[in-house]
C-alpha cells in the first residue's frame, strides 16, 4: 500500500479530480495548503507586479494498493501537468503506507483501501 500526496495548482483541481474519477480512483482527500516552491510567477496586486510569498496550492491525499499506483500517478501527471507544464505545476510524493483501517467495519490492510 502506498500513500500518494500530490501538490497541484488550485485552479486545476476540478480537472484532476475529474480525470481521477474517470480512471476509477474515487477515494481522495483534499486540502488547501500554501507553500514555497520554485514558482516565481508574478501576479498583479493593486496594479503592482509582485511575486507571491507563500503560494496557495491544493493537496490531494490518495491511499492506493500497488496495482493502482502507476495509474494514479499517470493520471495526475497528465491532468495537472498537461502538454506543456510550467514551473509551479507541483509535485507528487509517494510513501509507504503501514496500514489502513476502515472505521465502520474495522477491516484492515488492502481490503480497507
Amino acid at each position, binding site marked *: 500500500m502506498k500513500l500518494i500526496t500530490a501538490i497541484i495548482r488550485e*485552479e486545476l483541481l476540478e480537472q484532476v479530480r*475529474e480525470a481521477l474519477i474517470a480512471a476509477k480512483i474515487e477515494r481522495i482527500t483534499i486540502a488547501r495548503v500554501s507553500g514555497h516552491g520554485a514558482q516565481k510567477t508574478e501576479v498583479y496586486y493593486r496594479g503592482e507586479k509582485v511575486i507571491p510569498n507563500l503560494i496557495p496550492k491544493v493537496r490531494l491525499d490518495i491511499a492506493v494498493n500497488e496495482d493502482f499506483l502507476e495509474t494514479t500517478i499517470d493520471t495526475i501527471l497528465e491532468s495537472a501537468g498537461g502538454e506543456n507544464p510550467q514551473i509551479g505545476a507541483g509535485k507528487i510524493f509517494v510513501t509507504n503506507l503501514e496500514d489502513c483501517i476502515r472505521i465502520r467495519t474495522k477491516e484492515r490492510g488492502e481490503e480497507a483501501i
Partner: protein
Amino acid sequence: MFRAKILLPLLVALTFFMPLASIASESPAIDTGTTAWMLTSTALVLLMIPGLAMFYGGLVRTKNIMGTMMHSFVAMGIMTVLWVTFGYAMSFGSNVFGGWFGWNPDYFLLRGIDESILEAGVPEYVFAMFQGKFAIITPAIIAGAFAERVRFKGYCLFIALWGILVYNPLCHWVWAEDGFLFNMGAAGAIDFAGGTVVHISAGVSGLVAVLMIGARKGFPKTALSPNNLVMTMIGAGLLWVGWFGFNAGSSIGSGLATAQALTVTQTAAAAGALMWMLIEGWHQGKATGLGFASGILAGLVAITPAAGVVQPGGAMILGISASTVCYLMIGLKNRLGYDDTLDAFGIHGVGGIVGALALVFFIRDSWMAEAAASAGGSWTILDQLYVQAAAVGISALYAAVVTAVIILIVNKTVGLRATNDEEMRGLDHSFHGERGYGNLNIG
C-alpha cells in the same frame, strides 16, 4: 398612488421651456421631510445590490465567488453611467418611435434637471437617482440565472445592451406618464414598484439566457454546493431591509401611501418566509436557512407590484401564494433540467407573475372606486386582471425576444459562455485573477 411615481418629471420638463427667472419663482418649494425620505430610500435600494452580491455570492462554489459578486458590483458602475448619460431620458422622456421608449434632450447627462424640483417637493436629481438604482439591480438579478459560467466581458456587454434595449423601454411603458401600459384600462396596469419592470423582466430574461447558453458543467448530476450560506443569509437580510426603500420609496412621497407600502412589504416577506419553511418542513423534514431566505425573497417579489393597492391581509396571501408557487416551480426546474442556477426565474420571474396577477383579488375598495369612476361607471376585478395579464404577457414576451437577440449578438462578438477550461478553473481565476477565500491561508 403608483401614478405619483411619474407625474412629476413631466411637469418639471414643461417648466424647462420657461426662462430661468420664472422657474425660480414658480417651482415648488422643497419639502424637506419627503426629500429626506426619498434620499434614504435611494440609499436603501442601493444597499440591495451588495445584498444581492452576498446572497448570490454565498450560493456559488468557492472558485466563482468573486466573479459572482462582481456581476452585481459591476452593474453599479455600468448601469449608473448609462442611466445618467441617457437612461433617464429614455425612460422618463416623452414617447418617441411610437412609444417604444422615451426621449427628452434635457435629460441627456441630466443637464436639464440641475435646479428642478418636482411637484412632490423633491429635487428631480433625487428622483432620477432613485430610479437609477432600479436600473442597476434589474440586470444584476439576471446574473443569478447564468451564474458560474459566463465570461466577464460578455456579461458587461450583455447588461449594458439589456439595460438600454429592455429595461429603459419597459420602464417607460409602465412608469412614464405617456407609457402605454401606464395608461392601459381604467387606471393603468398596476405595478407599484417594479413587479413587471424589474422582477418579471429579469426572471424571464434569465430563463431565456439559460436556455440559450446551456447548463453548467456537471449539472444536474453533481452537487454544486454553496460556499458560504452565512453570507447568503446576511445578503437576504440586506435585501429585506433595502426593499423598504424599493417599495415604500416608490410612493415618491412620505405619507399615507408610504406607510401602506411599508406595512404590506413587511407582512408579505414574513408570510412568504414562514410558508416556505412550512412547506420544506412538510416535504423534507427540515427547515433550511436557504429556504427561509428564498421565502423572504418570494414574498418581497410578489408584493412589489402590489404594495400600493393591497392591505395586510392580501399581502399575507400574496406572500404565501408566491412561496408555494415558487417552491413548486423550483421542483419542476429540477425535473425539466434547465440550469437556472440561483433561481432568478424561479423566484423573481415566477414570484413577480404571481404578485402581478393575484393582486387584483386584494385591491382596496377606494382604488377600485376611483378606477370605476375613471372608466365611467364600472370596473371589475376581471377587467383589471385582463389588464394585468396583458402587462405581464407583453413585458415577458418583449424581454424574452430582445434578450435572445442580445445574447446572439454578444455570443458572436466577445462571447458570453465561458469555455470548458475557464469554467473548470473558476470565474475568479479565469476572469479576475483573484480568489475570495484563499487569502485565509498562511502567507
